[in-house]
């Protein structure tokens, strides 16, 4: 009986720890990247691809990282020659069995209040927060400032 209890406790602990793994069972994050930032800049933008393996839609509701004070999900659009950036209200929807790509000219995770400029060749950890999948930790490599993709 005690042996079964130990197994049960262990199973519960493993299940509780699951969201802390780099990839959750439902959300896979691919090709994260960002660009080096100029001196004097206090913001940056992280791009990546989110793959939702599960049969239920999920939402990217936020993110955190030690490199910046706060992170927000934004969409960038150029409308009639005017650059517009808007926070994505309620978070970024990721369809069931589908993907969402965060890339220049579209969505990005905005880094606000960078503590230090991001330098090409560096990388840093970042945690994405999903409504259903919970926390997903990733490592973001920093490309050169003119980079077009990861």
């Amino acid at each position: 009986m005690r042996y079964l209890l130990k197994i049960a406790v262990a199973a519960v602990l493993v299940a509780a720890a699951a969201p802390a793994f780099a990839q959750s069972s439902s959300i896979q994050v691919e090709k994260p990247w960002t660009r080096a930032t100029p001196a004097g800049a206090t913001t940056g933008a992280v791009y990546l691809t989110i793959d939702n393996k599960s049969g239920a839609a999920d939402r990217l509701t936020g993110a955190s990282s030690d490199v910046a004070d706060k992170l927000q999900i934004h969409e960038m659009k150029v409308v009639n020659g005017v650059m517009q950036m808007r926070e994505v209200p309620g978070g970024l929807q990721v369809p069931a069995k589908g993907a969402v790509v965060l890339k220049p000219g579209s969505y990005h995770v905005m880094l606000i209040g960078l503590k230090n400029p991001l330098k090409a060749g560096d990388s840093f950890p970042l945690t994405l927060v999903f409504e259903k999948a919970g926390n997903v930790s990733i490592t973001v490599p920093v490309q050169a400032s003119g980079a077009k993709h990861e």
Partner: protein
Amino acid sequence: MRRTYRILAAMSAFAVIAAAGFGLALTGVLGVPSTKAGSADIDIAGPFTLVDDTGAPVSDAALKGKPTVMYFGYTFCPEVCPTTLTNLAHWMQMLGRDADKLNYVFVTIDPERDTPEVMHAYVSAFDARIRGFTGTPEQIAKIAREYRVYYKRIPTTDGGYVMDHSAALFLMDPNEKFVGLITYEEADASAVAKLKRLAALAPGS
């Protein structure tokens, strides 16, 4: 029959005038100047007094005598402004010695955050020849009005803000007359060709 024609003619004329007026209003409001190069009808550019990135006052007189590439943005911008200035620095490299024939100016539309110190660090990261201009909100409003640049503060949920702003690079001749635009994400070959033509306007070219 004749009366119908007269009414139709009047309505068409009105529609054309209204459309033209609306078009002009749109370009004014949205900060997208029409691209009729060198035309006296285009009322873009004008005198200004700002503060450069050493903290010294600077006026449009400082730019006269050389063609100018001017960009309006802000340093809190995570994507469009660093990309535009990176592209500009790249085009300056591609121009070789012709690059020295032009003025390059980055004007902030977020003067509250973009002090001369911040501007100096920022533009220096791209190319030493790019100057940063800031000023009081009134001084910035004046130059933005003259250049038909649209900008607007957009609050974010954390109590901060980002800025909507016109995304193009303005090209002026040595007399500060507007001659054209380079649009956001314009191809390198096209942008460099425009800058080469601009450099050819420099005296002694």
